[in-house]
């Protein structure tokens, strides 16, 4: 297992957001954390890697106990945050060269650009890029340090279906290279198409962790979306959605 979380709890003041979270992620897989908006997916991954202090529990990543962001995270884990901005007046090539300079053994910038289809626009400024291009650059920034584990927080949020599918094939390619990808999403289709295993986060807990097909079979539904609604209920939460 590349990630093991045991009984992790996290609250913001009086408000408990994660309660007794247990999770195991296999090395070399694409693992999805599925949940509604505001379920706590971002809090889960930020607490897991030590960006936020957990209240209790144990987190092990790459065999190391994680309390705060440490060298294990910095050198071996790449995180693509849900919202982030790059330096707008730098070109793609300059941005990747800058981030590559932080690592002792980065991937070649040209190789990463080739993998993500950025070589034709490598001299374009970040503020001149479309949404899909920016997401690919952010993914490139996440990959440039050659991490063993990539954590992508809602990597396809707000993107066209075509761009979403092209990112899916990139993610599958990364898995085929032996990398582990942990992604959060509220797009059920994305979890169903892309992930080897899915954990559903609902009401502060992980209510199920299994492959998409086994979740569908267990809930006796046709699709993962139906299984998700069956597990999480179909009420619209006031003040949340």
């Amino acid at each position, binding site marked *: 297992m590349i990630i093991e979380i045991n009984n992790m709890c996290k609250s*913001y003041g009086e408000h408990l957001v994660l309660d007794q979270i247990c999770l195991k992620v296999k090395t070399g897989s694409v693992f999805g954390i599925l949940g509604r908006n505001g379920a706590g997916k971002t809090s889960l991954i930020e607490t897991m*890697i030590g*960006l936020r202090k957990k209240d209790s529990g144990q987190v092990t990543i790459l065999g190391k106990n994680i309390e705060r*962001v440490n*060298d294990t*995270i*910095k*050198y071996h*884990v*790449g*995180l693509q*945050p849900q*919202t*982030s*901005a*790059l*330096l707008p007046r730098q070109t793609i090539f300059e941005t990747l060269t800058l*981030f590559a300079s*932080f*690592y*002792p053994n980065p991937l070649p910038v040209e190789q990463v650009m080739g993998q993500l289809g950025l070589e034709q626009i490598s001299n374009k400024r970040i503020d001149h890029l479309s949404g899909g291009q920016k997401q690919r650059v952010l993914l490139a*920034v996440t990959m440039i*340090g050659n991490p063993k584990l990539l954590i992508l927080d809602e990597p396809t949020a707000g993107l066209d279906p075509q761009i979403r599918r092209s990112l899916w094939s990139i993610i599958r390619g990364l898995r085929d290279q032996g990398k582990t990808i942990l992604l959060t999403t509220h797009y059920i289709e994305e979890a169903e198409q892309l992930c080897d295993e899915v954990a559903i986060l609902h009401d502060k807990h992980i209510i199920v962790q299994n492959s998409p097909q086994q979740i569908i079979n267990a809930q006796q539904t046709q699709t993962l979306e139906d299984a998700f609604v069956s597990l999480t209920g179909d009420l619209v939460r006031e003040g949340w959605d």
Partner: protein
Amino acid sequence: MVYLLLSSCFLAYLHSYCYQNAVFTIMQPLVEIKKNGTMALFELTPLKKREFIFSMLLLRTIYTLIWVIILIGILLMLGTIQISQLFLFFVVVLFGMFMVFTFGILLSTFFNSVEVAGAWGGFIIVFIYIFSGHGGMLPNVKGFMKTVSQFNPFTYLNQALQQVVFKDITIAFPLYVNMLIVIGAGLIFIIVSVKTFKWKLEV
């Protein structure tokens, strides 16, 4: 007399440029990239806080050196400084910039909003300017203003520059004392900056 007036104006301009540099070219941009999430990306890389801070310092020092060289050329043309004073003037300005830039970096660690940073920055500039002996030489400043000015490290930068540019002025401390205070203040600012620096907004 005209040269004296022009020299005084240039020095006043230099001070104003320094303080505005601290706020508008260092503090505000750092707050902005902290707010928009760019620095949060750096947090997850092996880049260390002190490396980032020193790179910000180095970049602005290089940029400012170009401007300082132009200023020296103007002052030489006016006859305000002689070639023999060049080295001393350059050293004083360099260390002065160090203090000013580290002050700007320190200020950026306290603000989460660019607008609030700008508003407070403007107030801080005025405060520093008034209480750094611009109304006169430090020995001639009296009362409450003198007390506050004595605790303002920018006062000593002001005194040091005036000592280098003008001859026969009434000074409170020798040049080396003023410079020690300027360098010491810069070191304190940078040590505190590294301790208080955050890669992203506090939640």
